[in-house]
C-alpha cells in the first residue's frame, strides 16, 4: 500500500521520433500495472499536443495548463480512469505549453511532486522530439523507457535522445521497448544492434524491456478509444504489454 510518504517509481516514456506507439503503449502499460493492484498516475507529458485523453476517450475539463497558468491544485485536475489508475491530462493546440520557461517548469515539477507520493508508479508519456519538456521529464524520471520501431529513422532518433540524456544529464538507466516487430528474430536483431552501438559510443548497457508485435488490435483500440488491454486482453500486443509489466514489477 502507498501512503503520502512513498517515493513512487517515475518512468518516462519517450521515443525521439513521433508515431511509434508511445501513447498507446503508455496507456496500456498503466492499465496493466493497475490490474496488478498498483496505484498508477499517467501524466500526459505532451504539453502542447496532448493525446492520452483521446486514446482513453476522455472529455477533459481541466489540464496541466490550469496547473501552470492558474496554479490549480493538481489533485483537482486528476481524472480517475479506474480504481488505481488516474490520469493528469494536458492541453492540445497550446504552443505556450510546449515551451515553458525555466520558472514554469520548476513550478510544474514542484506541483507534480506534491501528488506523486500517493502512487506506486508515475508514467510520463512525453512529447516526440527532443524539446525542453522531453528532456526535463526524462531528467525527472527514475527510469527512462525509450520506445522504437525497426525503422532506421526511429532507431536514429531514439539513439539521439539517449545520447542527449546521457551526455547532458548523466542518465544511464535506459530501457528499450521495440514496437511493431514482425517476429522474435527482428526483436533480437534490433535490440542487439542498438545495444552494441550504445555500448560502443556511449558506454551504456540498456535493458531489454521487451517488444510488442504488430497487431491489428492496436489500431482498432485507438479508433474505439479503448485500451486494447481492456477490449482485447488476449491479443498478442496485450500479452506483450503484460510481459513488460511483469518485468517492471519483478
Amino acid at each position: 500500500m502507498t501512503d503520502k510518504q512513498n517515493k513512487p517509481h517515475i518512468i518516462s516514456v519517450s521515443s525521439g521520433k513521433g508515431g511509434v506507439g508511445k501513447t498507446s503503449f503508455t496507456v496500456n502499460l498503466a492499465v496493466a500495472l493497475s490490474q496488478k493492484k498498483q496505484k498508477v498516475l499517467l501524466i500526459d507529458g505532451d504539453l502542447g499536443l496532448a493525446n492520452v485523453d483521446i486514446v482513453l476517450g476522455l472529455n477533459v475539463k481541466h489540464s496541466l495548463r490550469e496547473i501552470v497558468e492558474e496554479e490549480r491544485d493538481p489533485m483537482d485536475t486528476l481524472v480517475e480512469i479506474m480504481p488505481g489508475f488516474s490520469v493528469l491530462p494536458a492541453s492540445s493546440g497550446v504552443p505556450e505549453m510546449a515551451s515553458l520557461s525555466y520558472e514554469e517548469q520548476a513550478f510544474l515539477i514542484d506541483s507534480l511532486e506534491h501528488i506523486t507520493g500517493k502512487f506506486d508508479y508515475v508514467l510520463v508519456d512525453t512529447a516526440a522530439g527532443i524539446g525542453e519538456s522531453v528532456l526535463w521529464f526524462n531528467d525527472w524520471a527514475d527510469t527512462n523507457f525509450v520506445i522504437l520501431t525497426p525503422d532506421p529513422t526511429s532507431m536514429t532518433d531514439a539513439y539521439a535522445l539517449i545520447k542527449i540524456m546521457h551526455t547532458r544529464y548523466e542518465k544511464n538507466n535506459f530501457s528499450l521497448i521495440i514496437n511493431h516487430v514482425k517476429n522474435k528474430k527482428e526483436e533480437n536483431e534490433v535490440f542487439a544492434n542498438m545495444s552494441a552501438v550504445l555500448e560502443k559510443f556511449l558506454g551504456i548497457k540498456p535493458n531489454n524491456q521487451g517488444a510488442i508485435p504488430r497487431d491489428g488490435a492496436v489500431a482498432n483500440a485507438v479508433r474505439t478509444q479503448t485500451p486494447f488491454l481492456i477490449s482485447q486482453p488476449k491479443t498478442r500486443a496485450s500479452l506483450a504489454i503484460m510481459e513488460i509489466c511483469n518485468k517492471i514489477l519483478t
Partner: protein
Amino acid sequence: MLAGSKKNKGCEDFFRMMESEAGNFPVDIFKVSENGSLQGFLALESSFSKIKKAEISRALSFAANEGKGNQPLGTPQIALADQDTLKTRLRTELRLVKKSKLPCSLLLVKIDNLKQTEHLKMVMNQLREHIPCNGHLDLFDDETFSLLLPGLNIKRSLRLAEAVRRSLSHRQIRMGLTVCTCRDTQKVDTFVRMAEEELKRAEAEQMEICHSCAEPGHDSCQVTAEERVHLFSFLNVGKK
C-alpha cells in the same frame, strides 16, 4: 507589501525564492540582513513615492537591534561581507539551482587601486547599480569584488558584465565569470575556483573578461556519421 523576519537557516531558501519571484513584478525589495546573512525583506510597489518608502523604512527599522549590525530597512549596507559569507550564500544558491532549474552566475571583478577606502566606496556604489534585487555584492579579496547573480544565464551575465565594464571604463578592470546550470551543478569550492581561474586567465591574456559555462554546446550531442553506420549495420547484412 510583504515582510519576513525569522532568523532561521531553514528560511534562507524561502527568502531566495521570494526574492527571485519578486524580480518578475513591479516591486522594490529592501533587505534586512545581519552578518551578511539575509533575515527578511520588505517588498513595496514600485509606484510608492520615495517619501512614502522612506517613512515606511523608518517605521519598520529594527530599533531593538540598533547598533548591533542590523540595517534599517531601505538603508544600503556600507560594509561588505567577505569570501566566507559568499561561500555560505553560494551553498544556498547552488542548492536552489538544482531545485529551481534556474542558473546562477558568479562574476569576479578585479579593479586597480581598490585598497584606498574612497575608491572602494565609489566603485562599490557603481557596482551596486548593476546588481539585480536578488543578487549579492561582496568583497572577494583586497582588490576584487564578487557579484553573485542568481537566475542569470551566461547571456544575461555577460550583458551585466559589459554594463559593469562600461561604467568603470576609466579604471583598469579584469573580470572572471562562471555560470552554474541545473545540468551541471558544482560544489561551492569548485565553482569559486572556476571563477578565479577565469579571472586569472583574463589577467594573463590581458582581456577584460573571460568566462566559462558548464553548459555543453548544442552540437556536442549530434549523432555522427560513424554512429549512423553502426546503427544501420544490421539492416545492410548481405547487401553490397
